[in-house]
């Protein structure tokens, strides 16, 4: 009885929450396009740090220079400063400060059935939102999350974009589609990549305390 009536009574609140969550996730999501191919979308990225650090997939950032379109609509030049093909991660730097970064989440809190949202630019559609649940979490030998497999409708342009939990915290970077499932790289793996390449993990909790 409880669950069904709750879904009904909470319908309005759910709709309001979803749209404000979408707007929130949009604030730290960027579009990444190739500088030479005008207009053609290459992929999506996540603002990682206020001082201009952007994270995306290595398969999105195969060149050295890109154009990044911020949530404000501003277009800026971006330079690829690190790339790891095996991890399928890349870091870009843009000459903009005081950006609003994604709030850090924890992939270890995810369980099968956890609600997740993805934002991206599939097929050139700006800021397409997708809702789904965690299907399962693939763990490495040490028991740490290696992949988040999600029951969520993704398309190629989602690559490099954020996967957030029900509170809007970043839990993964969408990377590929495997047997219909969305596969995201857990934030912990991204942190490790940044620490070993650009020399800082660069979560900025002080921004969120402000």
């Amino acid at each position: 009885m409880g669950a069904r009536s709750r879904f009904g009574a909470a319908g309005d609140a759910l709709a309001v929450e979803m749209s404000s969550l979408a707007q929130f996730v949009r604030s730290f999501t960027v579009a990444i396009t190739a500088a030479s191919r005008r207009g053609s979308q290459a992929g999506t990225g996540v603002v990682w740090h206020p001082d201009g650090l952007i994270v995306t997939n290595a398969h999105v950032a195969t060149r050295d220079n890109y154009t990044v379109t911020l949530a404000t609509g501003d277009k800026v030049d971006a330079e690829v400063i690190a790339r790891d093909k095996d991890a399928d991660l890349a870091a870009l730097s843009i000459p903009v400060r005081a950006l609003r970064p994604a709030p850090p989440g924890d992939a270890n809190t995810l369980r099968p059935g956890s609600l997740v949202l993805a934002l991206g630019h599939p097929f050139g559609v700006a800021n397409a939102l997708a809702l789904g649940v965690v299907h399962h979490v693939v763990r490495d030998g040490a028991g740490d999350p290696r992949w988040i497999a999600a029951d969520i409708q993704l398309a190629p342009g989602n690559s490099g974009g954020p996967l957030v939990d029900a509170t809007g915290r970043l839990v993964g970077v969408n990377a590929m589609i495997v047997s219909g499932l969305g596969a995201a790289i857990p934030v912990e793996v991204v942190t490790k990549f940044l620490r070993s390449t650009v020399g800082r993990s660069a979560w900025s909790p002080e921004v969120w305390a402000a």
Partner: protein
Amino acid sequence: MPAAASPSVLESLSNDLTGAVERVGACVVAIHARRRIPSSGVVWKDGIIVTASHTLQRDDDISLTLPNGDKVDASIRGRDPSTDLAILEVDAKVTPANVDTGDSLRVGQLVLALGRPGASVTAALGIVSALGGEWRTWHGGRIDRFVRLDLAIYDGFSGGPLVDGSGRVLGINTSGLSRSAALTIPASTVSRVADQLIATGHVRRGYIGIAAQPVQLPEDLVRSLSLSQELGLLVIGVDTGGPAQNAGLLLGDVLITFDGQPVADPAELLAAMSSDRVGAEVDVGVIRAGRREKVRVTVGERPTERRETRRGRR
């Protein structure tokens, strides 16, 4: 919007869903009875596991991975390909699922499809997209309600439970009864078939012992015999010693009615031979040498089904 707001609707919904997955996931096992990826099964009663029959590609050498990770042997207690259900027996203590055999399904209801195609439980979210009344599967099995889902099908879907937001099992999911959509066999049907399989090892089905294929009846014949149908079933095989042969049905007869009802499709004939027909005397209308004839057949019980080896389904 602050990320750490007080628990939101979305957050509590997410917690409800993960809670339901955790509770029911403790009753979902992986079944190793086919190549490649294991299928899923649900602990329905003590030591009794329900799964989708089409996922069992062998009859022996079946093992399970339990929710706690233990691997144990299991044996088939019975299977009913007509409803795509099978029952496994296992000598292990696993808590049975909280099954809801009532009529609580609603169109639009949020539901989870759980699976265990390996060590860990998996979840997919969707809604009940359509409900209907009793229907017959393409093998003639009776399903109490038609339950169609708007939900993505991944490995481990078949044999897994359909779960509501409060962790009740509403049925068993299968991709073996429809080529296009995710379907659920409602819990009431699962319990009915399971009881029969536990008692006898199979589900009784009517049988007359013929092989038949649909044929177009010549127009002038339809007119001269004033038939209400354009198709009939050409008898292309008669089992030796079977009810049809005993009743005098011949190779080449074209079957047009069964117990007074027109039959133009093998599925209609199968549907007409439910378990309650076993032992009944039934008039079968045929066209033989251009004339209508009536043959009285005593419906027998179908010998145990051959095992199915359909592949490429999840």
